[in-house]
């Protein structure tokens, strides 16, 4: 998800060969709700949120640490393991 328009994200996805859909928060409401809106620059700062099936946030990566997806992947695995052990 980014604050780019749908057509901009579509072109971006085409250029880098992304097959999954990209969400567009053009009105900046979601980045504000999630507390990552950079007012000075007008975009959402880099962040990754893992939200479980109940809608609860289970993991947050903010800033440059969010470039590397391995921590959120590990958090996903933990969530999966919890599910299977229940």
């Amino acid at each position, binding site marked *: *998800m*980014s*604050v*780019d328009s*749908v057509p*901009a*994200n*579509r*072109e*971006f*996805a085409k*250029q880098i060969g992304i097959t999954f*859909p*990209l*969400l*567009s*928060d053009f009105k900046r*409401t*979601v*980045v504000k*709700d*999630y*507390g*990552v*809106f*950079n007012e000075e620059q007008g*975009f*959402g*700062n*880099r*962040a*990754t*949120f*893992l*939200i*479980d*099936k*109940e*809608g*609860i*946030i*289970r*993991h*947050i990566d*903010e*800033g440059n640490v*969010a*470039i590397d*997806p391995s921590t*959120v992947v590990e958090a*996903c695995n933990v*969530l999966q393991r919890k599910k299977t052990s229940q």
Partner: protein
Amino acid sequence: MYRRSLISLLLLAVLSVVVLAQQTPPVKTHLKVGDTAPDFTLRATDGKTYKLSDFKGKKNVVLAIYVLAFTGG
């Protein structure tokens, strides 16, 4: 004299660091692990509209916010 310039230089260095730090304030989210994720409804590149609460009871969701399209990540 030498000592005075050294102190001034040091002071300048400290001030620069303070000013630089203020120029790029890290935006920290108010959300915490354990909080309910704010619901959203957004349009996507596939033409569909996705609502977070539609996944409730069905799937875990990873919401990855990237800075801007056509940039490094």
